């Protein structure tokens, strides 16, 4: 059941990525190219998504619990440490080189372009490496 509901919610997310243009690396790279062929469209993607999520989260989080499960799993870390700046910096480099962030890359796998077929398995490898490094560290060592 949760598989099917998540399939539908993921499908909505993916259709949103495609309708918005975010799934096209050419459009992403033009959005990032402020000093060249700048295409500001993707500011509207983030604006629309944040607006709906801001209002919707307030409604949903006023409930005692989600529909399934005992409670909400919200991030609890608040400290601004090296990890929350170094990680995004590394991510931003790869995003700027390829035009792919993880969501759009996953919508691209079935279209089977050579670039996407190279990118997605490498992305999973990178994710796994980061998890093993992060979760292998003792808690006391975390800043």
């Amino acid at each position, binding site marked *: 059941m949760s598989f099917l509901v998540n399939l539908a919610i993921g499908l909505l997310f993916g259709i949103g990525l495609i309708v918005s243009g975010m799934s096209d690396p050419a459009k992403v790279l033009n959005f990032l190219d402020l000093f060249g062929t700048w295409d500001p469209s993707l500011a509207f993607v983030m604006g629309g998504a944040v607006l709906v999520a801001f209002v919707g989260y307030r409604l949903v989080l006023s409930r005692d619990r989600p529909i399934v499960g005992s409670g909400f799993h919200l991030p609890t870390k608040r400290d601004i440490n090296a990890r929350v700046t170094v990680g995004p910096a590394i991510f931003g480099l790869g995003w*700027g080189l390829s035009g792919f962030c993880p969501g759009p890359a996953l919508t691209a796998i079935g279209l089977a372009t*050579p670039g996407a077929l190279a990118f997605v398995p490498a992305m999973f490898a990178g994710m796994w490496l980061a998890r093993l490094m992060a979760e292998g560290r003792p808690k006391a060592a975390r800043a």
Partner: protein
Amino acid sequence: MTEFTPLASLLGGMMIGLSAVLLMLWEGRIAGISGIAGRLLPPWRDGAFLSRLGFVAGLAAAPFVVMAFTGQPVAQTVSGNVPLMLAAGLIVGFGSVWGNGCTSGHGVCGLARLSARSLVATLVFMGVAIATVFVTRHLIGA
């Protein structure tokens, strides 16, 4: 050049936001793609594997559903430079999980929750990505 598409982009963005809200309503989780995809790999620490698999399958199915509805191919102009894409994939995967989020987890869900941490992360990855495109397109010259 790509065409400026404010309405389609706003509509698509609102669909992404709605998806994030529905995931929070259904099982109380943040719609962060790097978190969802990264936890498809072992070790599995909670019982949400099938949920995550479903979400990722939905993302992967999206272009086929759009093509079935519109009858048009989905435009994706992906670089054919395989070594570059391998390297970029590796660092996107590593950086997004190391930083606890990507465009969705920090850029959409985090900002919607008014998280200062996510605001810092979003400014950093946007800034570095803009700088990267500046260097590759205007300094090195593509």
